[in-house]
């Protein structure tokens, strides 16, 4: 059996429609990236809020968590979080502008400018996270 792009089963269609970027161009890639990063960041938001309850358990509990959060693994996760925030945030600026017709024909250039800024901020932020 062959799975055609046009003959999708209902259950797999949304994921394939959004994230199967084969044959897509920059705009399609950016859309998939924004949707994935948005889902990841939303998950992180609720995880983060849940972890904050440790503050209510007092100094010992919170400081024990912070000691863990300063480990190389967690700092690496922080850098990944920063990457997600920068990509989603700056591409979101592009989606807002282009979505109202501002620089719509230059959306690719806008994407690369903003992602270059994101990369530079990520480098600076990542360095700071590991050295502070």
């Amino acid at each position, binding site marked *: 059996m062959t799975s055609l792009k046009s003959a999708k089963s209902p259950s797999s269609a949304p994921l394939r429609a959004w994230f199967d970027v084969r044959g897509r161009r920059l705009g399609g890639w950016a859309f998939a990236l924004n949707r994935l990063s948005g*889902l990841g960041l939303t998950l992180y*938001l609720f995880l983060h*809020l849940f972890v*904050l309850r440790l503050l209510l358990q*007092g100094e010992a509990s919170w400081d024990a968590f912070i000691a863990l959060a300063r480990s190389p693994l967690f700092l690496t996760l*922080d850098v990944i979080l920063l990457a997600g925030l920068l990509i989603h945030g700056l591409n979101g600026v592009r989606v*807002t502008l282009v979505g109202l017709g501002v620089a719509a024909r230059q959306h690719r250039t806008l994407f690369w400018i903003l992602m270059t800024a994101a990369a530079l901020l990520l480098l600076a932020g990542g360095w*700071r*996270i590991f050295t*502070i």
Partner: protein
Amino acid sequence: MTGSTVDIPDHLVPAETSPAAALWLVQAVSGLLLVALLALHMVAHHFVVEGGLREFRDVVAYISNPAIFWIEIIFLFVVTVHALLGLRAIGLDLAPGPTGRRVMDVALSLAGAGTLVYGIWLLITLRQM
């Protein structure tokens, strides 16, 4: 062919005014606000204190500042609205139908309200510590 003779099928015409435009604007504005609010939040909690992350006493001292307290509440409100509107947009792209849409809207509203209540309660409790 001129357009005036074309009838729009009933199922393509909404029964009432749609909030879609307003919600799109809210998502856009909240997103733009978050670029600034998140930058502030990341700097304050990762790049200012010795060792980066704030230990318990640093957190309590930080939240005790009234300006910071209110900024964090505004930040919580804006990020919750943006995240849940984002989930709603993804949910709508799955074509849930009228009942599914109502269930989704109620569930997301409750999740949003719950998140705000929890977050504000947490901040108030911390201030009193």
